[in-house]
């Protein structure tokens, strides 16, 4: 292959290194109005009255809107349409949007917000999983869901779980906690809207123009063809810009009212309130194993602290139980999940969506089981690895799987097995897997998940796709696929992306789906185009490789007229035969293995990560430079979550919504990372490619905690692994107590009766 597999620069590198790339907040059309949003100062309160009269009187204020101007509810999932752009009945977290103001400048808009008088009837806030499970003192946060403040229950059982535990030689239970954290993109969310000739146009820093398009249509009560959503250059998402947001709807509404461009850029504090980040998850896991460490059955329970709204929460809940059997051969598996509402900013999808938390618990749990049995933890894990071409007990179809090769690579490179053993120095090992795109769409439909059109004329080639490059390089992947097929360089391909007027649909940059799905759509469109070109060149008595692209395109256009082709991708229908089987299936799974080397100081509890080795099965690296970038970035974010990042609350408020106090690692906190790309040539991925953007984060937190155990002999069963927790665990160890820091108990949750599902017959023999 000519360009696939080559470490070429990203196609959008030049605009980004010169400052030319136009992000949403960089736009300032003539007569732009600036929007500020007044937010609730109470975590839970009924809104008695809103008096905006003083704000309206301030010179320079052009429009003031409240929830009664935008009463229609929206939400990313069809089953949880529970948000309003502005709330006029009830505030559910500190930061819930109440009033929006458009003014001639930001200073006036802010002052006008301060002039609004809102009368609240304060309600008792619900700030923890335990509190959400109890009878509310005042009232429930949402008026739907399970008992008390339960949002969603999931209870599934695959295979003979009881029998599996009965034949186990050893059964162990553990409890883990994974603290919530946030994406912290460097770019604060921003959106700007115009309303011209009865049509709304919105530029936004979103990961999914299509979902914003749908939400705008619903709330503004305009048909989709009168709305255009364009993805501006994107300053970082990590899942945090995947929901439609209040400010996007608000600027569109204000543009409609004022007839002028209206912009809203969130402050950093507001970004913490927009959130949709990692759910705090409490976990309980019970596993049965044979003497030699083969898993016979597993029972996994999760409780997710969801915050005030649904967001992607139903999917997040399923994800906390879905992927355990994708790495380990679990013959019988029971999963019970529960998401609760609390008076905090809503949680949602962050890099790894719902799976880093159970991965942390699962990897440490297996480490502990191995030690119970006197087995080497790595050997025991390997004994249970899934094989390629397997149907897991929960019916997930595994095709390519480089788990064993990833393991070998990091073990060898790190010298894990022969590492020096001394107090204070440790290594930890963990593995993981992630989806290459969700196999089912968020809203039910039979249409393709991604579509690409290609136009060739007079030597130029343009590809059109709805995908949004959020920095991960999806534009480069599209250009590379098209270039490869047509015999060009990626820089020769012009791209039009993420514009609901001019590009065909793509479901956006989340779920690690773009390379796989848009890549396949691009491949189909490009192959069709190549076919036209080859045919036309052959008609002239030449071979395609012998002529210039320009000549080929002129011959083809002369013969066929306008040259356009299209390709689309629809994932295979591979979900299992049970309700709830839609979350988890993916056309392919990536695999990762990681070793972390660190120093942990017994006196201070301070941890210094020295090095991380990580191997990632990406199927095929369409651009190894971009794959490395995704892997390194994932390791970084995993280390941040493992060691310092936490979204915590005090007295009903986010404790520290700032970049100073919400700790994200600096240059000086980042160790060396050695990345190994493992290629397994996936049968369905474009050129064999799978995902790289999320999976490599997952093994990092458990590997850190395992390394701390290796160094100091104490288990830190929750993230972040902070020095104070390490010191406390060591104190307990010295006192002869369990050498551990972590949650003591898992609450009694009234899960419903499990839906019992037979595993697929002959599912684990690698012949699927």
């Amino acid at each position, binding site marked *: 292959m000519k360009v696939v597999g080559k470490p070429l620069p990203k196609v959008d590198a030049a605009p980004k290194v010169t400052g030319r790339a136009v992000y949403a907040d960089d736009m300032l059309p003539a007569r732009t109005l600036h929007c500020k949003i007044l937010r609730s100062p109470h975590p839970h309160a009924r809104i008695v009255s809103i008096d905006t009269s003083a704000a309206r009187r301030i010179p320079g204020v052009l429009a003031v809107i409240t929830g009664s101007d935008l009463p229609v509810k929206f939400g990313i999932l069809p089953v949880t349409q529970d948000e309003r752009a502005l709330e006029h009945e009830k505030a559910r977290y500190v930061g819930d949007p109440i009033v929006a103001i458009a003014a001639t400048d930001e200073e006036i808009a802010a002052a006008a917000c301060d002039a609004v008088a809102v009368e609240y009837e304060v309600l008792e806030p619900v700030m923890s999983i335990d509190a959400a499970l109890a009878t509310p003192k005042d009232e429930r946060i949402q008026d739907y869901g399970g008992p008390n403040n339960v949002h969603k229950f999931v209870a599934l059982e695959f295979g003979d779980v009881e029998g599996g535990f009965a034949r186990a030689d050893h059964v162990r239970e553990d409890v883990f906690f994974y603290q919530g954290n946030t994406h912290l993109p460097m770019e604060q969310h921003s959106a700007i809207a115009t309303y011209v000739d009865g049509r709304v146009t919105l530029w936004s820093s979103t990961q999914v123009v299509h979902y914003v398009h749908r939400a705008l249509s619903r709330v503004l009560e305009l048909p989709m063809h009168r709305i255009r959503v364009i993805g501006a250059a994107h300053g970082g998402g990590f899942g945090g810009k995947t929901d439609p947001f209040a400010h996007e709807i608000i600027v569109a509404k204000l543009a409609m009212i004022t007839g002028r461009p209206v912009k809203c850029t969130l402050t950093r504090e507001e970004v913490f309130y927009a959130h949709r980040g990692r759910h705090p998850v409490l976990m309980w896991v019970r596993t049965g194993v044979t003497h030699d460490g083969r898993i016979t059955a597993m029972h996994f329970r999760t409780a997710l602290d969801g915050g005030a709204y649904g967001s992607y929460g139903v999917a997040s809940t399923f994800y906390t139980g879905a992927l355990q059997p994708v790495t380990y051969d679990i013959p019988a598996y029971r999963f019970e999940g529960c998401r609760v509402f609390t008076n905090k900013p809503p949680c949602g999808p962050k890099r790894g969506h719902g799976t880093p938390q159970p991965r942390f618990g699962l990897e440490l749990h297996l480490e502990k089981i191995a030690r119970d049995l006197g087995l080497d933890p790595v050997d025991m894990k390997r004994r249970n690895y899934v094989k390629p071409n397997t149907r897991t007990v929960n019916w997930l179809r595994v095709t390519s799987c480089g788990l064993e090769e990833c393991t070998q690579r990091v073990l060898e490179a790190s010298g894990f097995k022969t590492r020096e053993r001394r107090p204070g120095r440790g290594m930890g090992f963990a593995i993981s897997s992630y989806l290459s795109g969700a196999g089912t769409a968020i809203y039910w439909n039979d249409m393709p998940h991604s579509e690409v059109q290609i136009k060739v004329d007079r030597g130029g080639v343009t590809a059109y796709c709805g995908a949004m490059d959020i920095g991960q390089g999806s534009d480069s992947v599209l250009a590379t696929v098209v270039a490869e097929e047509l015999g060009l360089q990626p820089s020769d391909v012009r791209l039009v992306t993420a514009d609901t007027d001019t590009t065909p649909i793509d479901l956006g940059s989340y779920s690690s789906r773009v390379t796989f799905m848009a890549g396949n759509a691009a491949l189909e469109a490009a192959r069709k185009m190549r076919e036209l070109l080859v045919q036309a060149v052959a008609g002239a008595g030449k071979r395609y490789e012998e002529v210039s692209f320009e000549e080929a395109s002129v011959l083809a256009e002369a013969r066929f007229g306008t040259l356009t082709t299209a390709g689309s991708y629809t994932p295979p229908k591979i979900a299992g035969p049970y309700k709830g089987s839609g979350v988890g299936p993916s056309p392919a799974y990536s695999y990762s293995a990681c070793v972390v080397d660190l120093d942990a100081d017994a006196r201070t509890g301070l941890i210094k990560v020295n090095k991380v080795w990580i191997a990632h099965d990406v199927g095929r690296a369409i651009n190894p430079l971009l794959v490395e970038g995704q892997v390194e970035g994932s390791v970084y974010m995993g280390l941040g979550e493992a060691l310092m990042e936490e979204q915590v609350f005090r007295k009903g*408020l986010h404790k520290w919504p700032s970049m*100073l106090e919400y*700790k994200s690692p*600096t240059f000086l906190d980042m160790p060396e990372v050695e990345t190994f790309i493992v290629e397994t040539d996936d049968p369905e991925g474009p050129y064999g490619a799978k995902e790289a953007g999320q999976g490599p984060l997952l093994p990092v937190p458990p590997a850190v905690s395992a390394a701390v155990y290796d160094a100091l002999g104490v288990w830190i069963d929750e993230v972040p692994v902070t020095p*104070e927790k390490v010191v406390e665990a060591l104190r307990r160890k010295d006192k002869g107590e369990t050498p551990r820091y972590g949650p003591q108990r898992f609450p009694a949750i009234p899960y419903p009766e499990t839906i019992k599902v037979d595993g697929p017959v002959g599912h684990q023999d690698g012949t699927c």
Partner: protein
Amino acid sequence: MLRLPRFKYLRPRSAREAAGMAAEKGARAMFVAGGTDLYPKLKRRQFEVDTLIGLDFLGHDIRNGSTECVIDAGVTLSAASRDSHLKGGFGGYAEAAGLVSSPPLRNAGTIGGNLCVDTRCNYYDMTYEWRKAAGFCMKKDGDICLVAPSSPRCWAVSSSDTAPMAIALGGVVTLVGLDGERELPVSALYRDDGIEYMAKRPDEVVTSLRLRAEPGLRSAYVKLRRRGSIDFPIAGAAVAARMEGDTIAACRIVLSAVASYPLDAEAACTFLKGRRLDRETVQEAAELAAKPAKPLDNADLSHFWRKRMVRVVVEQALERLSDQPGGFDS
């Protein structure tokens, strides 16, 4: 975008003129040098002023004499951290200056500004909207302390890295006010109060810091913070000692970020006098030094852990001292 409130910007040409302006405007005006502490706090509406008095006239020189070093208050923290005289004679001071915040902030922040840096508290260093939601505290807009609600006083934390070191080195500042110029030991510049944390008069401008060179002087600063950069100290130890051979003739240990003012650890210094810096002595001194530290739950990480860590940073600072070749006499 968070923006500054409207203000007038006055540009005096001298400290005396600045003092006059400050006296005339009273509480509605503040001095600004590098602005790295002031501007974020203005954007968060922690100060309510309508006039800024720019201290751009302050000198930028470091004058090194045979017995003392005079640092103009306008010297940036990065310049101080790189200055060869300071590194040679007052290593701990250069270290402390080089550990403040992050490189770009050190290029703007001045040594005078860092001596005057506002006390901090994570109930206070928040935006107007956040503080309104939390309920205002007595340091700004409210009447109680949110860290210790039954306390009549404010417990915001002294968060300067260079102030403890300047005190440990026996530094003296020059202040210029309406009534003229006076000198004040840096140790007398602070008060044990989170709100009225400075003892200088509001019209007085810090124009320079004088550090006295002594034979056998060694110094070190150890800063504890979560990340390698950007963060304020959550505990710190500044140590300066005059050595006679391998014996401590005199020393001073000052702690950062464990009280509303740089905390002098006198008992440890009395103990150390006349001793050699062996392992046991260091440990015992650190134990004594840590005793008066009372971190509260208003900075990063738990105050229990921070309290525990005070001993560690003092030990580390003392160990660094014993590793050093002498200062002026070497």
